[in-house]
Each structure stands twice: as structure tokens, then as C-alpha cells.
């Protein structure tokens, strides 16, 4: 199981693929990201790699199950999904979406 993530070209913010054919189908809230089967994820990644005027540097985040990151990716992806863990913007991303930490 995988998530598709990237940064939006115009503002650089982290986006998560949540279904649909265009950029409006992506969400800034990792909690709403579509859990993708591996094959579908690979195909979507190829499609979005070419859409460089919309997103930058898309890649797949592997999951152990729906809500659990693969350990190897844990810190980095936890930080991306919830905001920095320290400082002025600690868990800013999570707070903006009025939710607790995900993953």
C-alpha cells in the first residue's frame, strides 16, 4: 500500500494525491490521502512525473497498513505530514487541518 505525494509547483507546499484527474484532486491534508494499491500507485506516479507545471518531485510513500508508515521512512514522512516537530511551526500542518498527528 502506498501514498502518492509531491510539492505544489507554485507554493512548494506538500500535497497528497486524493483521487481525480487534476490538481484539485490533491490535498494538503495527509489524513485524506488515498491509500493506493502498488500497481495503481506506480501508474499514477508516472503520470504525475510528467505534469511538471503542477507538481514537483512526486514520489511514493510506502505504508505497512492504512495508518502506519514503513519504519525506514517514518521520521521524514511524519514531519512532512504534520509539520516540523519543533520551533515556531511545530505541528503547524496538523493544526491547520484541525487534526492530531497522523501516522
Amino acid at each position, binding site marked *: 500500500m502506498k501514498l502518492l505525494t509531491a*510539492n505544489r*509547483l*507554485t*507554493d*512548494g*507546499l*506538500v500535497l497528497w494525491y486524493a483521487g481525480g484527474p487534476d490538481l484539485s484532486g490533491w490535498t494538503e491534508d495527509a489524513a485524506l490521502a488515498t491509500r493506493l494499491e502498488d500497481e495503481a500507485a506506480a501508474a499514477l506516479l508516472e503520470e504525475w512525473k510528467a505534469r*511538471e*507545471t503542477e507538481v*514537483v*518531485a512526486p514520489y511514493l510513500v510506502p505504508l505497512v497498513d492504512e495508518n502506519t508508515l*514503513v*519504519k*525506514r*521512512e*517514518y*521520521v*521524514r514522512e511524519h*514531519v*512532512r505530514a504534520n*509539520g*516540523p*516537530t*519543533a*520551533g*515556531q*511551526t511545530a505541528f*503547524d*500542518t496538523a493544526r491547520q487541518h484541525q487534526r492530531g498527528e497522523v501516522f
Partner: protein
Amino acid sequence: MYVYDQFDHAMVTARNAEFKDQVERRLKGELSEDQFKPLRLMNGLYLQLHAYMLRIAVPYGVLSSRQMRTFAHIARTYDRDFGHFTTRQNIQFNWIKLADTPQILEDLAAVEMHAIQTSGNCIRNTTTDQFAGAAKDEIDDPRPWAELIRQWSTFHPEFTFLPRKFKIAITGATRDRAAIRVHDIGLQLTDKGFDVYVGGGMGRTPHLGHLIKSGLSGEKLLSYLEAALRVYNRYGRRDNIYKARIKILVSALGPQEYARQVEEEWATLDQAQIDAPHAEIARIKSFFPQPAYADKAFDAAALDRTKAADAGFARWVRNNTLAHRRDDHVSVTISLKPTGLPPGDASSAQMDVMADAADRFAYGELRVSHEQNIILPHVAKADLYDLYRLLDQNGLSSANVGKITDMIACPGLDYCSLANARSIPLAQDISQRFADAELTDKIGDLQIKISGCINACGHHHVGHIGILGVDKQGEEFYQILLGGRADEQAALGVITGKGLSAEAVPAALERLIKLYLELRTDETERFIDTVGRLGRDAFAGALHEPA
């Protein structure tokens, strides 16, 4: 400080127009990300974990109050209300929108600032002593030379695609506060000209720079640098990013052979076309006069009485001020290392306060230090208490300069896409563990430097205690290095003991410090001296929990 003339303005305006066009072409899809990346990097724009990060050059760390207010404006208008001062004496904003960058660069140009060459494989911002022009132990002011290098290196057509980034540092004092031995080129001003050190650096394979030339005349500095860079550009490795810095070339050739090749290349250059003439050096020097010092009556006895009445002030004066070339002035360091906050961060409100403090008490001038603090280089002793109270009301009076909690830390995995581990939370834990002022003062001078990966932006190789974050199968571990120093007796720290988890580090440091306090001859023997006297192995055991 240096003031732009029509030529300097035209150069920045042209670059901003060029970058604006590049941004537009990128948004339209005429430039691929792969093509755009080096172009945006040449203007300091990175894509980090959460957003774009813009790194703005503070040339050799010198800043006017007006420029500081512009940083506050950028923090408020385009970012999340704070900025991060870096070990390159620059500032970074972490939440920048690509589409906003042309306007930000325009705002910066209005106060003679830019983000040119703050990234990319080019010559970066030259760094120097944060007390330049003020320190009592200064031989010659490095700032005019740094400005000369800034101009020569800006848009240098031959050196825009070097094998790797290139960093130059200059010091003009007997104490090296610019860490010149861990730079690609380190310049020491002496009364006979420049001593040139080459091939220092940190990263994966740290090296101390080698002296390759003594007594180089300032008027020949640029052509010599041009020869040194050309040899590097031609022969530096490009097949492996970890072996591309000049330190690897100098170490492979040997410093003598590298120096010989530089001399040979130097002889082929049309030096008169490269070296700025005496009149230009004199023009640049004229921008760095001593300030028009206010003759404020200073009453030493009154200052002593104030210190006796306010212990916090007394401690701040003791730790955060440095002897000035004038007896009635000092240099003040504003510590950006309050307990529990990220090292080097300042809010927009704090930036405005520091700008106000500079205007009221420091002739409008500020500096950024590579230790990630802000300096008011010239403060009349008569004004110290008023300054202290202003800073204290705004969370800027931490009295810990040079102490264990005055840590350098890179942004780490909380922001940086290259990092393997987090740095800031660890720095926060350590600062909380050692928050007690009395204990901190008892420990004395001690530099902790934390990097979240092998690239060593947090200078861990030259911390008295260096901490390097590594990733071990998805878990953050921290290796401890002991014995490094960045001063005129530069040395590289050595990994001591096994890697520790983040939770284990503060307690390990506590045991280490306890042992040091037991072992030191007396309170004048600093941690680094005790480590030097007894060897690192004497301390290795303390890093680990007794079985």
C-alpha cells in the same frame, strides 16, 4: 557599511529581471524542473520538505537596521513570521511561495540585498569575523576585502558551474572567529598581507586547510584567487559529489603541488585586468570607517552598582560583551539561543526590536555571526543597561554566549530534505537540560555543534562537543565527537563512543560534563583543554550509561 552605486544597483536589478523571467518560464512549462533547479538555486531558492526555502545573502554578516527591518517585513508578509539565521551568516525563510519570489527579491533590492549565489556550485557569501572593525585584537579590517571578493565573485562567468560549492572566509584578528581553516579558502590578514589556506572543509571527509601562500599582497588577491579557482574548476573531481570539493583535489595533489599549479596559472593571467586598482580598494575601504562615536560619559562605578543590583544584567555583561577597540565601548552579542527554542530563529517582532536597538544604541549596525547570533558591534558602555532592558523585554537577553547552550544547529530533518536526523529538538532538549544559569557559568566556555547529516552544516566536526545525526534503519541516532575546535588552533573532533538515541543524548552530556568538572585542574581549564590534556578516551566511558 558598503553602499551600492549605480553599477551595483544595475547588477541586482538585471539579475532580478532575469530570475523573474525564469520563474515565469518555469510556471509556463518552458523550463523543466531539472533545468530550473540550478537557476533557482543560483538565487538561493531551495525546495525543502515543506515548501520553498529562500536563503538571502548577508554579505560577510554585515547588516543595517533598515535591512533587518526588511527581513521582519519578509517574515510577516511572505513567511510564517520568523526567519532563521545560519552558519553562513545568512538568513533563511522556510515557507516561501515560488510565485512570490520575484517580489521578495524586489523588496530586498530596495535595501541593497539579494539572494545571489547563496546556493549552487559557485562562490558563496564570503564570511568573516562578526566583530570586524570593532575587536581589540584586530590587525586589519577584513570587511573591505570581503566586499572586494563579493564583487569579483558575483556572476563570475568562469566559476558559475564549479565542481561543487566554494566558500571563502577571512579573518583580520589574532583570534580566528571565522573558522578559516575549515573553508575551501581561508584568508588570514597579517601585517604583511594575506596568508592563504586552501582545502579545508567539513562534510563527509573533513580536512583542515593548508597554508599555500604567505604575504600575498591585497592588491594581487583577486588574480591569485582567480588562479586558485581555475585550477580547481579544471581539475576538481566531477564524477562523485562527495569528492568534488577542493579539499579532495588538494589532498590528492598534495598542497605543494596544488600551490605550484596555482602559481603557474597565476603567471599566465593578465593580472592588471583582474586586480582592482589601488583607487578601487581605497574606495571600498572608505565605506568602512569607524562610526562617529558618541562621547557619552561613562561611569564605571555606576555600571558596577547596576550590576550589583541586577544579577541578570551582570551575567549578561559578563557573557555577552566583548572588549572593543575603544575603552568606552563594547561589542554586544544578542543570543538567539533562548532555552527551548530553535537556535538561530528570530520572529519578525524580534527582528524589529533588534533593528531598533541598533538605531538607538549601536549606530544602526548589526552583524550575523556564524554561531547564529546577532551582534551589535559598537555599543557605548553608558548605554548597556538601557539596551539590556530593551532586549530583556523582548526575549532577547539570554546570557549564554560561548556557553554550553549557545549551540549551533542546522535545520535538520524538521525542514531540510537532505537531513538524516533532526537537530532542533535535540538542541531544545539539551538547552532545557542545562537551563540553570549557575551551572552553565560554572561549566564555562563550551561549544556544542549539531548537524543532522554528514554535510555538516551544523559544523559538528569543529564543536568541542560535536553531534552528528545519522539514520540507522529508520531510527535517528547521534554520534558524539569530542575535541574539535574552529579557532586559530583548529582541530577536527573524533567520534567517541557508540551512537546514542535522541533520548539518551542529554543524559550522556550531563555525565560527560560532570566528569569534566571533576577532572579539570581548576575553573580556568576549559572543557576543550581538559579533553586535550587527558585525551578523548578518558571521556568515552561517561557517554554511556553505566551497565
